[in-house]
């Protein structure tokens, strides 16, 4: 018995018989392993941070000199060569199209997620919806642009609605899958409590399930919005671009921040390139705001507290 348990077989109250040397070495080994793990972890974190930091640094350095009040409030001059002006037409276009896309994809996506979690459980249709959501998340966004180009732009021309349609298709699977995860987190006990009080299924969904999952759903929506705000290729194919503020929804090409950054960066004149840098910074800040809002929403998540 005592041999089997080694040192602990001796009197454990006094630690007698426990070799002090052995304690030391095991402690040392543990400390070394601990330090090594810590160094490794910090190293890995740093490696991840470096590219992020560099992106921020370069965009800020190149964009800040051009980013002034005029840039934020004026449209682009007619000639790329000319200095001055700004991307407000792109900002407005982006907000219109992302807003419209959210208006389409959020209700659809949340309803879809409700179907998956509350109604479709185990049904073949739910499996199909889930499968295609996953596939759509992985589809390159330029394909989505090409699809909307064929389906909407060829018959009706470029426009905000076409751009929004493309962005909505990109956002939809993200909203569906993230909302589904959040809805699944709502404890069964809460739903049972609601049913036991005489609530119907839809009442339970609107009054208990959705409010409980709302912060998490908001997080997913914000991330989808951030993703859509930065999409370029599908907008080139559906919204094209414009030099001034456009508020018509159909039949007129409309500008957006990412497309303006793209065209500005491709042009040979320094003035246009400087505007592109400032536009990239503006886009980065916009996405940052959405991500921040997502963080705030998720920190309010009652289920994770």
């Amino acid at each position: 018995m005592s041999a089997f348990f080694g040192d602990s077989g001796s009197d454990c109250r006094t630690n007698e018989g426990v070799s002090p040397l052995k304690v030391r070495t095991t402690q040392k080994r543990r400390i070394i392993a601990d330090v090594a793990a810590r160094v490794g972890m910090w190293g890995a974190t740093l490696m991840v941070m470096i590219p992020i930091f560099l992106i921020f640094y370069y965009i800020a350095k190149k964009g800040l000199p051009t980013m002034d009040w005029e840039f934020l409030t004026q449209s682009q001059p007619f000639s790329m060569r000319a200095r001055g002006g700004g991307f407000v037409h792109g900002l407005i276009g982006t907000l219109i199209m992302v807003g419209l896309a959210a208006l389409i994809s959020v209700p659809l996506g949340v309803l879809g997620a409700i179907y998956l979690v509350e109604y479709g459980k185990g049904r073949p249709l739910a499996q199909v919806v889930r499968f295609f959501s996953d596939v759509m998340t992985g589809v390159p966004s330029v394909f989505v642009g090409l699809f909307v180009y064929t389906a909407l732009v060829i018959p009706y021309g470029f426009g905000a609605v076409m751009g929004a349609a493309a962005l909505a298709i990109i956002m939809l699977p993200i909203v569906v899958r993230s909302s589904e995860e959040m809805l699944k987190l709502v404890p069964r006990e809460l739903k049972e409590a609601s049913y036991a009080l005489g609530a119907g299924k839809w009442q339970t969904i609107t009054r208990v399930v959705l409010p409980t999952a709302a912060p998490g759903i908001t997080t997913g929506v914000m991330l989808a919005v951030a993703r859509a705000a930065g999409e370029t290729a599908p907008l080139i194919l559906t919204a094209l671009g414009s030099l001034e503020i456009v508020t018509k929804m159909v039949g007129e090409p409309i500008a957006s921040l990412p497309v303006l950054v793209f065209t500005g960066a491709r042009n040979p004149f320094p003035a246009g390139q400087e505007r592109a840098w400032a536009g990239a910074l503006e886009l980065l800040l916009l996405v940052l705001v959405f991500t921040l809002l997502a963080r705030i929403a998720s920190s309010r998540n009652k289920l994770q507290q």
Partner: protein
Amino acid sequence: MSQEPAFSVRDLHVSYGGQPALKDVGMDIEPCKIIAVIGPSGCGKSTLLRCFNRMNDLIPGAKITGEVLYNGQDIYAKDVDPVTIRRSVGMVFQRPNPFPKSIRDNVAYGARINGYKGNMDELVERSLRGAALWDEVKDNLNKSALSLSGGQQQRLCIARAIAVEPDTILMDEPASALDPVATSKIEDLMQELKEKYTIIIVTHNMQQAARVSDKAAFLYTEVNETGKARWGILVEYDDTDRIFTNPRDKRTEDYISGRFG
């Protein structure tokens, strides 16, 4: 027996996905009594309880046959909406499950669902008083229910249940997650509640069943010859005193005296 039973259970069989869980249960439950359901784990106590408000309907694959008469009406008849049953047969669960809403909204939930037209503040106060919680929370009605202690949460769940003005309250091991002080508060509360409500309580705790209940039902697991299928049966249903001092069935006696389960 002079009084009309609140519930009459006849030939009740329940199965989950083809596996029997409860066989051939029959019992009458008188109003304004506390009925304890006791028995070893997995013998179908919760299953039986959930038959009284049709909560088993929510479980895919659950199949219920037989009759559960509630004030003479079969609640499993074709034209009965389970929602209306649940409005008069409330339920309190094993783990306190308040909504992540304010204390007031928790209590008001059922009334709002039912389109209650009366004075909501009054209803909230009356229900919280009824659940012996009012004095502890009256200044914090807008605080989140999740900030309450476990025992307070469970009493809030009772307040939430009585706010819809049911006549029966089902309790599934309502004190098993609580400390002794909170438990005795719930037990005291049950004695008050029984003035107005029929209470059916599942409990693991023999002493609790003996303390609080007027009648007790002992369920036990039966196993078929192959040992593969098992289901619950109602072994004995009688006055609590009789069950605990002089049970008719050997299995009840063995269980009460702690020889198994």
